[in-house]
């Protein structure tokens, strides 16, 4: 077996660091947008708003039922053939759109589960002292649902960071794209891909640390 080329791996680190911001940025923007969209979808599902409920079900069914890569190709290569102005959408935007729609479908279901998971007695108590539906949601249900939803939502965020590695198929050179091109130039596949694997691993570990801190804070009210 050949010996690992450590110098090459070290040389790759500053190169990959240059592409890290784009990866994080696509995931962060995608996450914020997906959270907003997912909250809306979840509320529609919980309140069973007529009409919108059926549309939401269809939305979730499609975006959960088809692979992310297919959705990305559809937005980036497919739609511009139908509507020429959509060529304006560049790879970064298409990736963020794809991540947002895809993950919001999953997140909507886990947020809905969190809302439903808040004990029924909480709702009854709130209504008995005359709270409106809006007050009930804002003051009682959503804060408690947040605590329940955080672990699964963090899971989706982690998944989303790794899903940005599909963006190179849309011409976006992010962490994975930069690695693929470097590997093609050097033919040192193991060194290149283990380096990028460590990159993703460290990012996810940092997030997991943040998640533990967040959960401790959210659980403060429940400590006895």
């Amino acid at each position: 077996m050949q010996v690992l080329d450590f110098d090459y791996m070290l040389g790759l680190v500053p190169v990959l660091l240059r592409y890290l911001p784009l990866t994080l940025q696509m995931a962060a923007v995608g996450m914020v947008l997906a959270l907003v969209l997912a909250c809306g979808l979840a509320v529609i599902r919980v309140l069973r708003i007529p009409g919108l409920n059926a549309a939401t079900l269809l939305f979730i069914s499609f975006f959960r039922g088809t692979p992310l890569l297919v959705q990305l190709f559809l937005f980036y290569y497919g739609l511009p053939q139908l509507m020429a102005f959509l060529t304006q959408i560049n790879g970064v935007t298409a990736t963020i759109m794809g991540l947002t729609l895809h993950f919001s479908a999953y997140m909507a279901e886990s947020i809905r589960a969190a809302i439903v998971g808040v004990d029924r007695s909480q709702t009854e108590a709130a209504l008995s002292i005359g709270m409106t539906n809006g007050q009930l949601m804002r003051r009682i249900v959503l804060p408690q649902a947040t605590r329940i939803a955080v672990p699964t939502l963090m899971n989706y965020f982690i998944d989303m960071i790794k899903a940005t590695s599909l963006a190179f198929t849309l011409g976006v050179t992010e962490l994975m794209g930069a690695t693929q091109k470097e590997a093609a130039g050097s033919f040192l596949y193991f060194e290149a891909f283990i380096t990028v694997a460590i990159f993703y691993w460290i990012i996810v570990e940092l997030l997991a640390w943040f998640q533990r801190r967040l959960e401790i804070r959210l659980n403060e009210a429940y400590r006895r």
Partner: protein
Amino acid sequence: MIKRIALTVLAAGFMTAGSLAQADEHAIKVGMSGGYFPFTFVEQDKLQGFDVDVMEAVAEEMGVEVEFVTANFSGLFGMLESGRIDTIANQITITEERADKYVFTEPYVYDGAQVVVKEGNEEIEGVEDLKGKTVAVNLGSNYEELLRELPYADEIDIRTYESNIEQDTALGRVDAFVMDRVSASQVIKEKPLPLALAGQPFSKIRNALPFRDTEQSRALRDRVDAALASLRESGELEAISEKWFGTDITRP
């Protein structure tokens, strides 16, 4: 606090999106994979190779800027089709199907299809020995078509790859791969993979730059063609070829 972070992130996202979407009239947008040594590849974040040099020379001749867009090979024609790039400089071979759909410049590289095997494999000595073997080709490349045209195509197990066919042949996961002779020789010479050429090239190929078949794109094609012709005349095209291959691959 969280709201402010979210807004900053959003703003940053849209700013990059905006700056990337701007079209430039005085630039030619050239798509390439960045993963086809030594035509287009990256070392220490620097895009380089034969096709990079050729396109830079062409742009200079035309008096425009050149903007390289890198994407996976299978995405390149989609980008051309959807108008995101003007042409592809990635050793695109002129095939009948492509010529129906796109307009090409004059060929700027003349080459042959080559079978490559793992070093020490003496079973395969040319394309006629591929019967019953597993052969790797790049997805969307014309080599798959070339193999399918062989009379014994049914007996070849053709595997299409997104990338890394050299590596899988060296690992022995497939018996051989087919690529153009020039880059195959270059890979064997310069890279630490145990590979060997098997026999002679088996098909003539001509590579050129494809453009969309629209009035505007055809006009651009004509300008690129003129630039290529004058580079050929001045000997600059040959010089670029000599630099990368030590031989002139730009003439039949």
